[in-house]
């Protein structure tokens, strides 16, 4: 980068061309107050609070790039007076009374008020009522609290690639709207929740954390999401001194760039499945409770003549212990080998131009991968070719849509693809054959279980074998029904489901935020998940049981 000389506060400094005044000031540790500016988003200059003086003219420092001969003054009396006036106007327009606002304490407008020493409103407040949009399952939009910084609009399009939020009307009537002014709950919103995370005031908030206190009353825990194998970085806000997660935010410093999907941000907290609350064993009269020693004894007795099935919800540490106890009698209950091996990473997805998605709705699952692709499509830097015969919400954004049976003819028509990335979950043999023929294709496999790759690395393959005793460890009991009929079945699972009573020994294990461990993400990187909550039930730590079994066996 070419360097140029400018003056800041009278001092001559050498700065890189192309940077904004705000960025330069930050590097020099000079403070400029900001509100609408938010680092990963393109600057917009809508709040004006960051203005500075350059040779007698006021400019917004977030949008103005440095230029030769600039003489920037950051806090002349005029600048300070203007900023004060702007802040007064921001506060007096709409409802910015802090004490009955959810965001109070974490609000950036409030922080500016404190910074500027604002102790009263100079102007008569202007009261106009906008309707609060409470139609969404997880998010509330209160336009009365909005400062029109458009962070949400920018985050929705530039980062998350959903393009749901926009604005309507002009001046004081401007409101943030979803789609063509429909309630958010009825819009094309995918519930990624990034707008909640970037909103500086209480205009967009999530329902779970509503009035659950300020950020300083929570513990911030950095972890990774284990809802799918993308493994996004998350920042978990746990209420101090209690066993409760207030909210989950995306981690802007990780690969997912702060973006999460509905599964990671909301489903993990909202959708509480009914849990298996204590260990029980079936005898002639039904189920009766069993303790830790009883469990160890029973398993130890049945171990000789048993096969063990696992699914991809287990962490690496658990898998390696299972292997240690049960050796080569461990199988995966589900098919987990990729039809075609992945040869690109998440970073390649961000930089690719052409994408071919086969049979996956990236708005519903693997949402963050969907965001990376959609934002390229919307900024016209990429093309999306979709092959899917079922309903797929990507149809609205794809450049070309084909049925899954048109794979061969469709690819035939698109000869100008620039080493496209093929994104897929399941492929039939025929599809695999068609795709592998193309030499310039790159492949990105989306395993359907969180730690499918971990299973492969531990060399746990899919195979169904009959045995007198069956031990299943995992969450997904779907495949167990048919094979467990005549065997004594021991199930380690967190959830209470309808079919669970057919099995013989039920052992509740920790779930979700109660367990810690590592797993392999889609890139094959090891990713850690932290323990955040304590189990509310009499659940067992899987690792403790396995370690005890090793001990008993060696005696």
């Amino acid at each position, binding site marked *: 980068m070419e360097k140029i000389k400018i003056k800041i506060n009278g001092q001559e400094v050498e700065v890189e061309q192309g940077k904004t005044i705000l960025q330069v000031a930050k590097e020099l540790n000079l403070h400029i107050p900001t509100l609408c500016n938010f680092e990963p988003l393109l600057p917009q200059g809508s709040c004006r609070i960051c203005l500075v003086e350059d040779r007698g003219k006021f400019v917004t420092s977030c949008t103005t790039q440095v230029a030769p001969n600039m003489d920037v003054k950051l806090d002349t009396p005029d600048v300070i007076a203007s900023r004060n006036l702007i802040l007064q106007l921001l506060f007096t327009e709409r409802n910015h*009374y802090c*004490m009955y606002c959810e965001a109070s304490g974490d609000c950036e407008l409030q922080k500016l008020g404190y910074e500027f*020493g604002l102790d009263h409103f100079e102007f008569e407040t202007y009261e106009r009522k906008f309707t609060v949009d409470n139609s969404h399952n997880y998010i509330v939009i209160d336009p009365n609290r909005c400062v029109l910084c458009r962070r949400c609009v920018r985050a929705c399009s530039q980062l998350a690639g959903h393009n749901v939020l926009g604005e309507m009307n002009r001046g004081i009537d401007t409101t943030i709207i979803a789609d063509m002014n429909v309630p958010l709950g009825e819009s094309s919103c995918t519930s990624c929740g990034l707008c909640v995370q970037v909103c500086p005031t209480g205009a967009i908030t999530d329902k779970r954390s509503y009035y659950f206190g300020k950020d300083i009353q929570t513990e911030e825990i950095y972890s990774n999401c284990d809802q799918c194998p993308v493994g996004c970085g998350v920042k978990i806000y746990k209420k101090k001194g209690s066993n409760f997660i207030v909210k989950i935010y995306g981690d802007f410093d990780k690969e997912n760039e702060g973006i999460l999907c509905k599964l990671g941000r909301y489903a993990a907290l909202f959708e509480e499945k009914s849990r298996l609350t204590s260990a029980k064993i079936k005898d002639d009269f039904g189920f009766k409770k069993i303790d830790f020693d009883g469990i160890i004894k029973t398993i130890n007795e049945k171990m000789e003549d048993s096969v063990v099935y696992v699914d991809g919800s287990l962490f690496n540490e658990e898998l390696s212990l299972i292997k240690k106890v049960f050796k080569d009698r461990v199988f995966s209950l589900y098919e987990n080998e990729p039809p075609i091996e992945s040869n690109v990473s998440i970073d390649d997805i961000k930089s690719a131009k052409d994408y071919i998605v086969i049979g996956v709705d990236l708005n519903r699952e693997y949402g963050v991968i969907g965001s990376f692709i959609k934002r390229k499509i919307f900024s016209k830097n990429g093309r999306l070719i979709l092959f899917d015969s079922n309903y797929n919400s990507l149809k609205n954004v794809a450049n070309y849509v084909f049925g899954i049976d048109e794979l061969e003819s469709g690819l035939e028509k698109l000869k100008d693809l620039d080493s496209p990335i093929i994104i897929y979950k399941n492929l039939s043999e025929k599809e695999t054959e068609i795709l592998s023929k193309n030499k310039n294709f790159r492949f990105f496999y989306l395993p359907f279980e969180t730690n499918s790759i971990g299973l492969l690395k531990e060399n746990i393959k899919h195979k169904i074998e009959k045995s007198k005793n069956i031990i299943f460890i995992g969450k997904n009991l779907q495949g167990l029904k048919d094979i467990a009929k005549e065997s004594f079945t021991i199930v380690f699972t967190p959830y209470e489901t309808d079919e669970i009573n057919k099995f013989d020994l039920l052992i509740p294990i920790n779930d979700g935020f109660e367990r810690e461990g590592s797993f392999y993400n889609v890139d094959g990187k090891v990713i850690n998940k932290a323990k955040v909550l304590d189990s509310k039930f009499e659940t067992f730590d899987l690792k403790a049981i396995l370690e005890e079994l090793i001990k008993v066996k060696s005696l």
Partner: protein
Amino acid sequence: MKKIKIASIWCEGCSGCHMSFLDMDERLVELINKGLEINATPITDLKIPDDDTDIGLIEGAVATDHHEEEVKMMREKCKFIVAIGDCAVFGGIVTMRNYIPTDELLKRGYIETESTVEGKIPTSPELGKHLPKVKAVNEIIKVDYYIPGCPPSADAIYYVLNEILEGRKPILTGDFLKYE
């Protein structure tokens, strides 16, 4: 020693700011020893302050015509007016009603409340009439100093009164400046 007379009223407020005032505890005695004289306040139950009152504290927003008269009276009688609490300073929680038409609000509050049987909207002529909009005190009269907070801390109130007693201009910063 010259006495500094202080008076206070509360308009549309919850009395929380006066609680904070009392929360100064023994520092109140300290201020009295410095010359503070407590005149007409809800605490002394005197209604009209003396004409030569020095400091007038106003808690609460201006919501009825009575409040409007009272704050105007305070301005006439007091040398300095200090608005204490978010309601007096900004309008505060009372401004919630500015977003709802007054008739609808009274109906909801006095008749349609879930626990109310045969409710009636009070009509006594002794009651103040609602202004169309709840206002902050500085929309009616000139205010000299402000202590926002809901309620402001006893420390903040002590700081402001002490600064005035010592002849300095109080400027709130840090923990003293809070909107909640």
